[in-house]
């Protein structure tokens, strides 16, 4: 049933006006990269949401596995000292 000639899927990343990083906004189908960027313009930037578009073939993205969430992210849990709020600096010291 699924036509093997279905247009491939692209993941779209857009950088907004204010110099922030490209952000994933969604995906779309297109025959090639050039069309993916043109389609992304129409689908994701109708209200000047961006000044730069990246289109990445969806099958080129490697993703971490949701079932390995524990071993991946738990080690950061007991390292509160990585945050500045861990340290109490007396008011007298002034801004720091």
């Amino acid at each position, binding site marked *: *049933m*699924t*036509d093997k*000639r*279905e*247009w491939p*899927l692209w993941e779209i990343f857009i950088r907004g006006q204010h110099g922030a990083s490209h952000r994933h*906004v*969604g*995906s*779309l*189908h297109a*025959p*090639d990269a050039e*069309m993916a960027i043109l389609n992304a313009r*129409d*689908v994701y930037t*109708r*209200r000047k949401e961006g000044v730069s578009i990246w289109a990445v073939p969806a099958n080129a993205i490697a*993703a971490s*596995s*949701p*079932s390995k969430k524990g071993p991946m992210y738990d080690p950061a849990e007991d390292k509160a000292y990585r945050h500045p709020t861990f340290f109490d600096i007396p008011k007298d010291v002034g801004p720091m």
Partner: protein
Amino acid sequence: MYAQMVKSEGPKDQDDPTKLAEFQARIDAGEKIEPKDWMPEGYRKTLIRQIGQHAHSEIVGQLPEGNWITRAPTLERKAILLAKVQDEAGHGLYLYCAAETLGVSRDEMTEMLLDGRMKYSSIFAYPTLTWADMGAVGWLVDGAAIMNQVPLQRTSFGPYSRAMIRVCKEESFHQRQGFDIMMKMCAGSPAQKQMAQDALNRFWYPALMMFGPSDKDSVHSSQSMAWKIKMNTNDELRQKFVDQTVPQAEYLGLTVPDDTLAWNEEKGGYDFAEPDWDEFFEVLKGNGPCSVDRIATRKKAWDDGAWVRDGLMAHAEKARAAKVAAE
């Protein structure tokens, strides 16, 4: 709503009870479920139906308004309507992409719409007879859609929630441009005001039907609400819609076509007449005034576009092969 009467499937025998309990706990804790996470088959299937139906509604929903683009009364109104209809195409695409993360392709969903296996909202099976209908559709139809889509931003399935956030950002413009048309017509000649009244008369009950059957007849709700696929009951949203819309009609100087409409102090909302549910079920079965035409139009667009889709794909493959050969 845009997804009315979505047949829901509960947990299945083969679902591992421990995993099911963990899954429900994640939803109850407000966590988002992402495509690669474990999910019950019933959750996945119900979501494909619901998001697919929602996507189809956005796409088919372009037709009643597209009907007036070439005949808009001014160039400005034409540009606005064009932008609105283009947004609806975007909404359809966001939603198809969300559904595709569940393992169904957009082309498959399109084929299921065209051969009747999937549905679209009953509202789009009604005709748009005059320019005032563009006002009524934006005001009432997009208004009803907003009522449903705002809470769906909190739905449990991540990609659906993100699509809804995007849609909701754009939807307010749709309703306002519709109300703006209604204001203009109601401030115009008596004949123009009559057109606005006529549009309200024809769209009032179909708009109420958008929320789906009455809760007492809504068999699919409870599982979907537990899984946060559905956030409110049909009657809750319908009541909210009526309470919000009646004062707007009064502002326009129009009469809601319901003799029984009355403010109920006790419940703090309006009492109102239910739409004709027999008509609703007929429309859902594909017997609405424009049902045949809508699907025929979509099918023609799909068939006529086949050579373009294939041609662009062939061109892309050829260009890729040429590039490889040159390297």
